[in-house]
């Protein structure tokens, strides 16, 4: 056939129409019936200016006997898109094409595990947004190859190196198993929609391996992962919420590590009165309070967004802005274990500090911690090891850390709140109290024999406690410059904003990938 522009463009147009059909109307309908969008719908909702790459790649469809059933559009959709004015590499499996079949049938993977879309993010230094919905490798893919495949032939290098280059933001929307599940967690922020599942192996695999029947939601449901395993950071009510959360997190982060995070509007005055702080923190030190109210009062209005709110609850980790500057907020949660740092909270803190360090977000740490969590459950979960790793993360953080002492600060856990080898700027409220141990427990332990031998042990213990409490007056530490500042809490916002603004001068000179030599985590 001779080439004419007319026939060529007609063919291109026809192929485009076919590609838009994804896995066909029945499978698309099933996706919708189950409350899920198609990958094209997800991409179209979150981006403007989507330019697709690999639009015309095809998936050769065969049945179990190897008979040719024709072809479908390929099982992955990807390209370059704009999200809230930000150019990103974006892609996702097409679950309507054999559950997002791995692209071993193509000369080059489009995405899902490495692939064009990850190369795009790497080469152009733009964020990577992935929608994960697939079952990873399966025997049908092996059938295509005609020989069995050693998984260690597959390179994960690109996926891991992106972690120190650009924001990698993942939404799990539907089922993610095997390789797809693995890819999902190599991300800076991940969100899973309610009803979605993620696991190394699904119920049929579990049945064969362990002889157990498990419900897929119990096994790897969205709630389980965001509350218990922490393998995924956030839960979304539905797919629309998941897309909103991705956009929200992107707004705090730069395009890549060679840039500072984008400063937001400076429309919330830094000297706005924060009188409510005096009502939020109770005068009764045995009463907990809602630390989140403290945080949202001090941060710019409507700038607060939590990461991992449902697990590691003794610590709160959140993005926020202060005078437009994107920051990472870490805070003890006095409502949960009195804020004691347990294994899960330590892990959550480490992940968040690493993220802030990577993308140049200064950290503001609000302290109300009675120590590492104690007790058999905590010890069995390795609180000592995880706690020390949390300390390491702060010691090795490559961003300024401004520490605000709201109330309790006892024991080793306090080392995880400030780095004395960096600026070590600690700002106390008059409600602050600190030491090696809370006086009550400390007296009991430290003077046990003398207490037992006293004529009136209770009275003796009370007198010792009172003497030590008087000496533990926080002002004495302040007088010795053992605490850098003591302030009226209502001025916290203004003072923290001023320090953060000044710290930007240094931050500008320290852009690029993390500088630290790789240190083994204990």
């Amino acid at each position, binding site marked *: 056939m001779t080439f004419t522009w007319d026939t060529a463009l007609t063919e291109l147009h026809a192929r485009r129409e076919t590609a838009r059909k994804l896995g066909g109307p029945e499978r698309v309908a099933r996706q919708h019936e189950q409350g899920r969008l198609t990958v094209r719908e997800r991409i179209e909702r979150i981006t403007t200016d989507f330019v697709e790459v690999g639009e015309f790649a095809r998936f050769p469809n065969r049945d179990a006997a190897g008979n040719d059933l024709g072809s479908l559009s390929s099982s992955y959709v990807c390209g370059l898109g704009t999200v809230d004015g930000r150019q990103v590499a974006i892609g996702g499996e097409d679950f309507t094409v054999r559950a997002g079949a791995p692209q071993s049938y193509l000369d080059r993977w489009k995405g899902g595990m490495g692939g064009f879309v990850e190369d795009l993010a790497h080469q152009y230094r733009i964020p990577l947004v992935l929608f994960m919905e697939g079952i990873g490798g399966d025997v049908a893919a092996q059938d295509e190859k005609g020989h069995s495949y050693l998984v260690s032939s597959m390179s994960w290098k690109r996926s891991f190196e992106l972690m120190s280059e650009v924001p990698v933001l993942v939404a799990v929307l539907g089922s993610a198993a095997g390789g797809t599940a693995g890819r999902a967690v190599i991300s800076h922020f991940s969100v899973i929609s309610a009803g979605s599942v993620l696991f190394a192996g699904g119920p049929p695999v579990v049945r064969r391996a362990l002889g157990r029947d498990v419900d897929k939601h119990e096994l790897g449901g969205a709630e389980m992962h965001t509350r218990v395993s922490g393998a995924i950071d956030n839960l979304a009510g539905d797919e629309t919420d998941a897309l909103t959360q991705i956009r929200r997190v992107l707004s705090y982060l730069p395009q890549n590590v060679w840039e500072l995070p984008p400063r937001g509007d400076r429309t919330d005055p830094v000297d706005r009165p924060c009188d409510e702080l005096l009502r939020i923190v109770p005068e009764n030190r045995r009463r*907990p309070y809602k630390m989140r109210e403290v945080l949202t009062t001090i941060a710019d209005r409507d700038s607060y967004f939590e990461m991992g709110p449902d697990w590691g609850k003794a610590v709160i980790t959140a993005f926020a802005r202060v005078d437009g500057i994107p920051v990472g907020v870490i805070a003890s949660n006095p409502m949960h274990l009195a804020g004691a740092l347990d294994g899960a909270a330590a892990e959550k803190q480490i992940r968040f500090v690493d993220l802030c360090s990577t993308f140049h977000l200064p950290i503001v740490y609000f302290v109300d911690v009675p120590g590492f969590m104690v007790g058999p459950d905590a010890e069995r979960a390795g609180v000592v090891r995880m706690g020390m790793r949390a300390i390491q993360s702060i010691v090795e953080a490559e961003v300024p850390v401004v520490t605000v002492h709201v109330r309790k600060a006892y024991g080793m856990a306090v080392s995880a709140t400030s780095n004395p080898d960096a600026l070590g700027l600690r700002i106390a409220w008059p409600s602050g109290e600190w030491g090696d141990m809370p006086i009550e427990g400390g007296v009991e332990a430290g003077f046990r024999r003398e207490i037992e031998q006293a004529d009136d042990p209770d009275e003796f213990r009370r007198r010792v406690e009172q003497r030590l409490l008087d000496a533990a007056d926080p002002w004495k530490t302040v007088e010795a410059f053992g605490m850098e500042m003591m302030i009226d809490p209502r001025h916290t916002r203004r003072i923290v904003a001023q320090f953060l603004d000044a710290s930007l001068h240094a931050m500008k000179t320290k852009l690029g990938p993390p500088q630290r030599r790789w240190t083994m985590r204990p």
Partner: protein
Amino acid sequence: MYDIRTELTASVWKILVPAGTAVTVGDEIMILESMKMEIPVEAPISGTLAEFTVGEGAPVQEGDLLARILPDHSATS
């Protein structure tokens, strides 16, 4: 009947109102103790506090039933 459950593992320190008391949403009905902290439990709805299902000193696990409220049907919200 509305169940009030604990969100954390603790022990019941003080019961603040007798069964049968009329409560408004937000009233403190009980204080739990955990890690030396006094954690108040508030009435999540208005109504009559029908019964406490735990006594002072009882240990409670996350999700355990603490009390029941008979909702106040004349309440607006």
